[in-house]
């Protein structure tokens, strides 16, 4: 993000959640912030430079809020930013108040509060295209008059109105004027005050509408005597005075009714409603099925299944392609380094293997983000939250938690941050603590590898899809009792009610979808990628050293002796040679640093069905679970181009044996390993994010402990179950 010099003027974009603020921000500043058709996508303050004719200003996009009395963390951030409190400690010089034209009454409620802050304001009226398609007519100048500020209609993603808005912002900076709204007077009274003001202005007496109103309402006012001297003024004056005094005080019982009275009046005056309002909209007709108590649930389950099935099916060919490229690459680079075996192994096994093993995850991650972006963009996520509320409610969460939890299926980090939309500390903390249980995209490769090796060949593609779906469901199912327990036993404080706005359906904006995929892919390749490459090289080093020629010769001789004894054959021929190679490789690995480490800890994981090789791979994945497939590849000693689609690695783990000759992997071992990855907290970034969001070390330590314990116990349980059923 470009930085803005200190001392520049500050413009803040404020408005209700889902009003189109981020879309507008992106159009104004050329940034590419994340947009989504559900409330609560922007949870942090993001800023960028805005180019005006009069120079550059800083523009911030702040989280959406419904009212200036915040109830959730993201609203608190927003209010602090508007009021110029910590952490920014800087009040905006101008507000762009984003008002959704298709939801004017409620959006104006916030405007009525923001208007009282006395900050110069320009209104950006979004979603005017929705008004047009609903054939509702907008009276722009009337609206602008009633709000007392310039109103500019915009359609952010089509760049409509952006230039006009920039000009309006420039004008507002030139002659700053805070909004002039008064929601305590009727329209007629206001019109009369306005004509009095106009009349007085003509005689050189300048008053704001508010000053006039105060004068008219106070017992003794100097205007009366002044007006007496000018008959034309007196006439207007008396009419305004009558209106003000006879204005039926709306005696509302509270502030909200007051403001809504005003906003209803303004929105009726500004937008004409054609035809019959009871007509069913397209959204109603879609929702007739999608939030239906039976069909809605079936469609929901179907959609979720489709997502995971597609990840499994569509990623395959792409992965094979990447695989092929890296295979060619090692085949091409390897021979060039024939003279230097250590360097050759480092480059082919460590580097090319590491990078290839990482890039091969990319297709699935992109497909997953494609689906999440589409579901977000259409507005379906909010419906899913509606359907899931009761289920989540059983354990003390609510439907709003569904959205952070679903994002966690891509990556727990944005999910944990999205928990800021939760209205109270209790539900927010509960959501944060179980978000890492959701099966993130980094777990996918392990599932794909093991399902492809042990499930798909035996039980067919349908069971493969179902298993993948089940692995993703597991975290959610496990989360329910955990949250229930936390809410019962650990957390204190009250819960705030569940409130969720259901936006109208719309086509996803394909640009937003591609951008989401592009950015996620980029973050993955750069951040996660660096870790994977470093870890791959590290694991390669630990599994390669120490290595000596004497030891190698010793292994070769040992094998030769065994071969002659057991096979009763001369130690020659291809079969002998390849058997000897794999024996030597195994011995070398077993005696490497990594192998010794794995063997030391093997007893801990034997109950889960893991030998020292699996143990080593599992332990090496604790900093970042993405590294496990490349690690397995290095450990099962295949060198280079290993990834979860690799037939070689599949064959190798299929062939691997316990020392007593039993196959290392059974279906149960595979499930045990998948469940371990599903439940274990193997991600340092997640723990760091939890630390930041909860501002305490207690919670990351808690998450790490409970997830690791859970994963271990579940794997042991499954292994025992497997043995009992055999």
């Amino acid at each position, binding site marked *: 993000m470009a930085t803005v010099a200190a001392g520049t003027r500050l413009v803040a974009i404020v408005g209700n959640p889902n009003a189109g603020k981020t879309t507008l921000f992106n159009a104004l500043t050329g940034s590419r912030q994340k947009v989504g058709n559900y409330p609560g996508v922007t949870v942090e303050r993001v800023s960028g430079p805005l180019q005006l004719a009069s120079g550059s200003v800083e523009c911030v996009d702040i989280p959406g809020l*419904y*009212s200036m*009395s915040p*109830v959730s963390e993201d609203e608190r951030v927003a209010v602090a930013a508007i009021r110029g409190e910590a952490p920014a400690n800087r009040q905006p010089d101008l507000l762009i108040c984003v008002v959704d034209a*298709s*939801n*004017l*009454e*409620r959006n104006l*409620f916030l405007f009525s509060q923001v208007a009282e802050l006395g900050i110069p304001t320009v209104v950006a009226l979004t979603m005017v295209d929705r008004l047009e398609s609903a054939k509702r007519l907008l009276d722009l100048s009337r609206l602008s008059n009633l709000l007392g500020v310039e109103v500019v209609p915009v359609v952010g993603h089509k760049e409509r109105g952006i230039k006009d808005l920039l000009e309006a912002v420039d004008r507002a900076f030139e002659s700053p004027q805070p909004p002039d709204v008064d929601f305590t007077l009727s329209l007629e009274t206001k019109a009369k005050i306005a004509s009095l003001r106009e009349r007085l202005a003509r005689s050189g007496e300048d008053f704001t509408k508010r000053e006039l109103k105060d004068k008219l309402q106070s017992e003794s006012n100097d205007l009366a005597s002044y007006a007496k001297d000018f008959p034309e003024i007196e006439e207007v004056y008396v009419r305004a005075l009558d209106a003000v005094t006879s204005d039926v005080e709306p005696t*509302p*019982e*509270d502030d*909200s*009714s007051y403001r*809504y009275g005003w906003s*209803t009046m303004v929105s009726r005056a500004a937008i004409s409603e054609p035809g019959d309002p009871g007509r069913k909209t397209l959204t*109603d007709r879609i*929702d007739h099925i999608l*939030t239906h*108590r*039976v069909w*809605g*649930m079936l469609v929901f389950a179907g959609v979720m299944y489709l997502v995971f099935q597609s990840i499994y099916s569509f990623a395959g060919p792409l992965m094979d392609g990447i695989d092929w490229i890296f295979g060619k690459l090692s085949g091409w680079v390897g021979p060039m380094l024939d003279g230097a075996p250590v360097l050759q192994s480092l480059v082919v096994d460590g580097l090319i293997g590491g990078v290839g093993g990482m890039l091969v995850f990319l297709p699935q991650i992109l497909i997953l983000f494609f689906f999440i972006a589409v579901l977000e963009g259409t507005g379906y996520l*909010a419906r899913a*939250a*509606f*359907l899931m*509320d*009761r*289920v989540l*409610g059983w354990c003390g969460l*609510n*439907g709003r938690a569904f959205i952070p939890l679903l994002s966690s299926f891509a990556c727990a980090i944005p999910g944990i941050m999205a928990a800021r939309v939760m209205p109270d500390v209790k539900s927010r903390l509960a959501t944060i603590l179980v978000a890492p249980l959701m099966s993130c995209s980094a777990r996918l490769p392990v599932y794909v590898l093991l399902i492809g090796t042990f499930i798909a060949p035996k039980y067919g593609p349908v069971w493969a899809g179902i298993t993948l779906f089940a692995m993703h469901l597991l975290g959610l199912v496990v989360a329910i009792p955990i949250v229930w327990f936390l809410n019962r036993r650990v957390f204190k404080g009250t819960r*705030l*009610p*569940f*409130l*969720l*706005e*259901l*936006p109208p359906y719309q086509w996803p904006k394909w640009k937003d979808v591609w951008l989401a995929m592009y950015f996620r892919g980029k973050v993955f390749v750069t951040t996660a990628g660096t870790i994977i490459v470093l870890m791959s090289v590290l694991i390669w080093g630990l599994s390669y050293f120490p290595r000596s020629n004497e030891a190698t010769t010793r292994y070769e001789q040992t094998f030769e002796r065994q071969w002659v004894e057991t096979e009763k054959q001369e130690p020659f021929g291809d079969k002998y040679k390849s058997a000897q190679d794999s024996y030597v490789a195994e011995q070398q690995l077993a005696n490497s640093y990594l192998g010794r480490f794995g063997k030391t800890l093997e007893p801990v994981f034997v109950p889960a069905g893991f030998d020292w090789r699996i143990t080593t791979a599992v332990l090496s994945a604790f900093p970042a679970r993405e590294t496990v497939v490349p690690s397995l590849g290095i450990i099962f000693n295949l060198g280079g181009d290993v990834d979860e689609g690799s037939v070689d690695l599949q064959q190798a783990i299929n062939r691997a044996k316990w020392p007593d000759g039993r196959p290392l992997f059974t279906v149960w071992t595979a499930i045990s390993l998948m469940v371990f990855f599903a439940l274990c907290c193997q991600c340092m970034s997640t723990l760091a994010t939890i630390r930041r969001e909860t501002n305490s070390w207690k919670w990351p330590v808690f998450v790490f402990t409970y997830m690791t314990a859970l994963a271990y116990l579940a794997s042991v349980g499954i292994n025992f179950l497997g043995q009992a059923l055999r």
Partner: protein
Amino acid sequence: MPLMRDSVMTFSELKQGMRVRIVGIHNDSPEARRLKEMGMTVGTTLNVVKVAPFGDPVEIDLRGYRLCLRKKETLGFDVEPVE
């Protein structure tokens, strides 16, 4: 205040397809305040668009937008059917 009429109901009695008006709010909690800030003020007309699979939450149409909330959390809001 027309509170003693027989037709006055609480939120928990809402059924899908009903059209009601808020006639009284007897709740000063922060939760109730937030509902008022979302537009649920006395005199507002609501349409009950959907009731979720297990009876809660409900989707209501008010002031031209759709809000989803739980019946059992909407305490102290008295409503009356309108045609």
